[in-house]
């Protein structure tokens, strides 16, 4: 059976199987792990190597120049750089979570390198390290703890905020035997906590203080924490491996090794086994029973992962992990569990053997579980053909099982396709399924981009339905930075070809990058393609394309953007113009506007401004008397300006008349000693005169402005009615036959409610229908009806009858409504 060969490679530890499939034959040549300092990033990240300066240089065999080299997990060299940094010996290096390589030298300088071996920046751990060299350091995810010659401890809690904090002084007199860090995210205190093996006990050190743990446990030679910091594995001076809770209160494993010599490396494999490595031998200790022994004839490095340990040697990369239960149930020797039978059934089916059906019959009740196990097992496989067989077994079983979540095969296939793509030796990211889930697809894509594997990243994003924008954006910026020699037009074309893949991508951001890279022309060509005006315009301004910015802002219809451009232009150029603009904005005075209109030849607008100014002068309380002269002058100036064009003759004359009116009103104020005339209308002036009894003045104003008879009669009638001078009104009616009839007289009296006075004039109305309505207004229904019938206007008659009846009824209706509502009190 095929299953046997799979299980043959497993080792049993207590009740679990472990296996260590080979991921890669390393592509590198002549890399000796013992002669180099090596930093391997978790989650199948890159490997950094640099010659260990503590070792003697083999002249002739290797270059005297030290080189920092970066490899993929498959051992392919991706970048190298000569190490010339001062600062003494390299004490340690490690990859941070976002894949920058942090290197610490003796003087406490931290050099950050990208995956392309480019120096990104440096920072110092501080004076203490400079004075007393760093002797040892210990990295974790995103931070580091250092210890100096003076036994001071410093920590960088997070490389993203490069700042060193001093940990509490624990009065050491010698270097600790061993050191372990509880990461801030798992520490009780929320800060960095360091475990130190000192003498026969352990110290817990953090920023605030020191705590002694595990007194009398005996000197610990090596110590390592499990991934989440809940357990600690340690190697004692007398050759025992202890696994305890990280506060040393509980002991889980106490295993005596054959050698009291501390191992070179101590590491957790998942969370239930511990690996100890001495030269030639790798020991895996589980909770019970005999440990597993692996023999290595070349040096190895243990790289802990969340679900196992990768083992790097000079020639291979292996992945040691526990065999998942589903795989055991299928491939376990002699297994007759449903998944194994299903797998077997597929083999029979392939061989066209009828046993396939028998197998299926045997497991029909647990078919869904069997299918699930096959899918699950496929996920753990690195071997593509085995993945395929397992998935085929699953879908074979699925065909006979009705209740099954059909998506799960598709989802797993999707993940496996992604994993197989990145596991390819050319890419060299041998992620396991769990690691991938923990890392998340978007981080994986970011890592690919970071490694400049843009095409794969793009394909994967497309395949996974993630936004391609990140990829394209990074590619474009990288392309611009890398294409200093390519002419703008050519480069633009190749950029646009890719940018158009992604709808809604920010061309402005690309253009900003081009501008930063010193390619302003390219930037302005790119920003043309930005559809969002709110992003396009600020950039156009920053690259000095004010004119085009103004055009675009106007087109966008967003007035805020227009203002943005205008303010920018004003700020940037002509300080005088700017000042004027500010003045305009501040005081809203006309000066600026006036200049503007003058310069554009809109004389009438200037005239309006002058006129308005004259009007405002009158409103200034302190200048009441003295402002008169200037006001007239302004209005006359306005009049002249209007007169410049034929279309504004009316306005010109109106201004002239205004000036005339002002003069007359001023005269009236002086003669009457009453300040009630200025700034009223012609009509109001006349009325005021009449009300004051100054008929001569009224007549004079009337003549000056050639007031029509119509206006004159209406005005005078109402003015006299206001002062209730009924005699004068009657006299006025007798002066001569009123040219517009007696209606003004009637209305003036009716409005004032003087029925008797009105009756003097109503009979004089010539039009019977007018007469009818007038009678109606003062409520004389009979007379109204008479007049109406005289007019022989049936429509009018009907309307009057309607209005009378409606009025009476209308009001009575509402009275009754109210009465009916009075029972509201009941409720």
């Amino acid at each position, binding site marked *: 059976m095929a299953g046997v060969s799979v299980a043959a490679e497993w080792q049993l530890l207590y009740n679990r199987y472990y296996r260590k499939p080979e991921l890669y034959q390393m592509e590198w040549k002549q890399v000796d792990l013992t002669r180099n300092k090596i930093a391997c990033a978790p989650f199948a990240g890159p490997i950094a190597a640099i010659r260990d300066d503590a070792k003697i240089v083999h002249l002739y065999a290797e270059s005297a120049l030290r080189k920092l080299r970066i490899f993929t997990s498959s051992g392919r060299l991706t970048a190298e750089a000569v190490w010339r940094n001062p600062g003494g010996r390299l004490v340690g290096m490690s990859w941070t979570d976002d894949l920058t390589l942090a290197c610490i030298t003796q003087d406490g300088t931290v050099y950050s390198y990208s995956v392309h071996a480019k120096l990104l920046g440096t920072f110092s751990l501080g004076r203490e390290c400079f004075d007393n060299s760093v002797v040892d350091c210990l990295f974790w995810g995103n931070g580091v703890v250092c210890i100096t010659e003076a036994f001071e401890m410093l920590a960088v809690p997070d490389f993203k905020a490069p700042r060193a904090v001093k940990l509490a002084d624990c009065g050491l007199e010698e270097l600790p035997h061993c050191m372990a860090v509880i990461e801030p995210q798992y520490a009780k205190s929320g800060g960095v906590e360091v475990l130190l093996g000192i003498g026969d006990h352990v110290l817990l050190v953090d920023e605030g203080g020191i705590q002694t743990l595990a007194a009398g446990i005996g000197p610990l030679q090596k110590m390592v924490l499990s991934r989440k910091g809940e357990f600690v594995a340690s190697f004692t001076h007398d050759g025992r491996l202890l696994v305890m809770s990280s506060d040393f209160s509980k002991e889980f494993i106490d295993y005596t090794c054959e050698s009291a010599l501390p191992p070179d490396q101590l590491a957790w494999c998942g969370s239930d086994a511990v690996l100890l490595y001495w030269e030639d031998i790798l020991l895996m200790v589980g909770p019970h029973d005999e440990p597993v022994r692996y023999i290595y004839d070349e040096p190895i490095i243990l790289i802990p992962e969340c679900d196992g340990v990768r083992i790097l040697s000079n020639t291979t990369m292996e992945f040691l992990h526990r065999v998942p239960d589903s795989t055991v149930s299928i491939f376990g020797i002699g297994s007759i569990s449903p998944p194994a039978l299903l797998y077997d059934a597929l083999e029979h089916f392939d061989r066209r053997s009828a046993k396939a059906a028998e197998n299926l019959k045997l497991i029909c009740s647990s078919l869904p579980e069997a299918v699930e196990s096959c899918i699950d097992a496929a996920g753990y496989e690195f071997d593509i053909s085995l993945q395929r067989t397992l998935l085929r077994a699953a879908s074979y079983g699925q065909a006979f099982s009705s209740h099954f979540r059909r998506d799960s095969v598709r989802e797993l296939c999707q993940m496996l396709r992604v994993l197989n793509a990145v596991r390819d030796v050319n890419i060299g990211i041998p992620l396991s399924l769990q690691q991938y889930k923990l890392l998340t697809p978007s981080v994986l894509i970011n890592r690919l981009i970071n490694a400049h594997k843009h095409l794969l990243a793009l394909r994967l994003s497309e395949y996974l339905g993630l936004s391609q924008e990140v990829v394209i954006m990074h590619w474009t910026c990288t392309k611009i930075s890398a294409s200093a020699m390519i002419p703008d037009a050519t480069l633009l074309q190749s950029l646009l070809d890719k940018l158009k893949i992604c709808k809604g991508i920010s061309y402005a951001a690309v253009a900003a990058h081009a501008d930063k890279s010193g390619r302003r022309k390219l930037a302005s060509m790119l920003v043309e393609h930005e559809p969002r005006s709110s992003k396009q315009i600020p950039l156009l301004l920053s690259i000095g394309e004010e004119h085009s910015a103004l055009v675009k802002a106007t087109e966008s*219809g967003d007035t805020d953007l227009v*203002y943005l451009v205008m303010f920018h232009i004003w700020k940037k150029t002509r300080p005088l113009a700017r000042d004027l603009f500010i003045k305009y904005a501040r005081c809203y005075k006309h000066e600026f506007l006036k200049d503007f209109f003058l310069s554009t030849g809109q004389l009438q607008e200037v005239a309006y401004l002058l*006129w308005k100014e004259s009007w405002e002068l009158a409103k200034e309380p302190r200048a009441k008397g003295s402002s008169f002269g200037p006001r007239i002058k302004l209005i006359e100036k306005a009049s002249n300006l209007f007169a410049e064009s034929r279309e504004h003759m009316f306005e010109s004359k109106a201004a002239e008349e205004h000036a005339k009116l002002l003069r007359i009103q001023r005269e009236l104020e002086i003669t009457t000693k009453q300040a009630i005339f200025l700034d009223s209308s012609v009509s109001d002036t006349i009325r005021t005169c009449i009300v004051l009894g100054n008929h001569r003045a009224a007549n004079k104003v009337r003549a000056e402005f050639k007031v029509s008879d119509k206006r004159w009669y209406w*005005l005078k009638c109402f003015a006299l009615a206001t002062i209730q001078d009924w005699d004068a009104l009657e006299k006025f009616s007798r002066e001569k036959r009123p040219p517009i009839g007696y209606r003004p007289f009637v209305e003036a009296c009716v409005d004032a409610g003087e029925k008797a006075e009105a009756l003097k004039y109503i009979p004089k109305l010539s039009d019977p229908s007018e007469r009818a309505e007038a009678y109606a207004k003062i409520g004389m229904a009979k007379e109204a009806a008479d007049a109406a019938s005289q007019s022989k206007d049936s429509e009018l008659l009907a309307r009057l009858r309607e209005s009378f009846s409606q009025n009476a009824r209308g009001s009575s209706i509402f009275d009754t409504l109210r009465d009916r509502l009075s029972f509201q009190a009941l409720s």
Partner: protein
Amino acid sequence: MSQIPNLENAPINLTEIRTRAQTELLNILRDIKGDKCLVIDPKLSGALSLLVQSSELKENGAELRHLTAEPIQTERTKVVFLVRAQPDLMRFICSTIHNDTSKGLHREYYLYFVPRRLVSCENVLAEEKVRELLNIGEFSLYMLPLDEDVLSFELDLTEKECLVEGDETAFWNIAKAIHNLEFSCGVIPNVRAKGKGAARVADILTRMQTEEPVNTSNMGIPLPEINTLVLLDREVDMITPMLTQLTYEGLIDEFLGVKNGAVELDASIMGNQQEGKKAKVPLNSSDKLFRETRDLNFEVVVQVLRQKATSMKQDYTEISTTTQTVSELKDFVKKLNSLPEMTRHINLAQHLTTFTSKSIFAERLDMEQTLVEAQSYDICFDYIEELLCKQEPLEKVLRLLILFSITNSGLPKKHFDYLRRELLISYGPEHINTLDSLEKAGLLRKQDSRGNWLTIKRALQLLVEDTDTTNPNDISYVFSGYAPLSIRLVQHAIRSGWRSLEEILKLLPGPQLETKRGGFSSIPSYDTLPGSLNSSEKLANGRRDLVLVVFVGGVTFAEISALRFLSSQEGMAYDLIIGITKVVNGRTLIETFISDWDK
């Protein structure tokens, strides 16, 4: 009764829009911990009252003040300004802050712009050196449901701003509001616009869609909820707002002025004993009786109210004279619950009749009719001349004068100058500015072409004889015989698009535009809809297509009523939602044009 309207019957989820705005506002307040003084732009307080109860603001530790030129006096150490983005308001804020600093007071200042921050405003703050003292944010209130079928863009946009000063800010805001709506309702596939501002809004909207596409596939909205957007610029129809509205709600606005869905009048009118006090009466569809009567011609409202009162009286007599079963009693009590509503509207209606029963009112309606008929030039001229001589209130005269000018395509040069001079003589020379604004807006101008009003009127059947106001069959009932031009256009736009109307549209101001958007080519545009099979199917599944009608510039209540009437017609395959910048009537519209020299 609350002023916040009930939105449950809205054809799209308006509650969500309002809730979003409410949450945003309350989050702003909650994020600023502790007690604070909330200083509100007075122009916003109406909008806020449609959004949250002031008690709710107080619960969040806010003490309320209005922003005025006077520095704010408060004990609180945190001051939150909530203002429209207007440079002149920035001065007020500066003066408060300067006043505090001069007294050595240190407070935390927060400034929230509605709906968004503007460079021009921030510049003022920077010049006054208070920019750094302020924490600036935005309260992106672009749109607010006014009622279950009315959305307001909360813009204090005046016709003057658009027509005379050429400020386009409002157009962008309207487009933004519609675009925001599209994010929850999908891209509106058919857009029809008429008039300069409307076309500009359509234009900006298209641009926004390319800049920030509403992604239909990802949001999981298979089909747009709104089928058609009709954008209509007020400039296209300045006739309608000049006429006196005759619907119930329209009349209330004409005589009493409706503000943010409520009318304020003397408490005595509402049958309240406290003399001199003001009573605020909310007017929205949460009031069932108002919902029933608001869109009716006022004549009919009086009848309806009378009927209801009579039937109630009958019930009452029955109850007191004959023995009733318990369930009958229950019904009666139920009816009694509507009593407060009845009383309220009877009071209001009675108050309105004091205006409508005057002969001057009938005379005015007559004249409006004559002007719109445009057959008797001399009668109109004499009437307006007489009004000028009698110095009737300016906005009343202007309403007729504008009607006169538009229906005649401008006035002959001689009369144009004559009436303008008469106007200056009556109301004072400063009104040269009023005349200038009106002329620039095209509302009062010199005749330069042959009149086309008669053609428009005939083609669109604007004057309808024998209108039955009780059982109307046409929108003309809202003006007792005149069908509002604007709504006729909407009617055509919905029914068949602009194509059939092209010749007439050319006679009206501004460009027209008809576009399809968002790759919905597969969706039929229902170009020829009414009576087609499609419409009955739609009705069968209980949901009708939606049309969003947006008025760029103000709209009158009568027009809203006419649209509601259209929507309620049986053969109609659409529900209508109305988007407005603000509600206007002839008076409020004209007031913005009247000379601002005094201010």
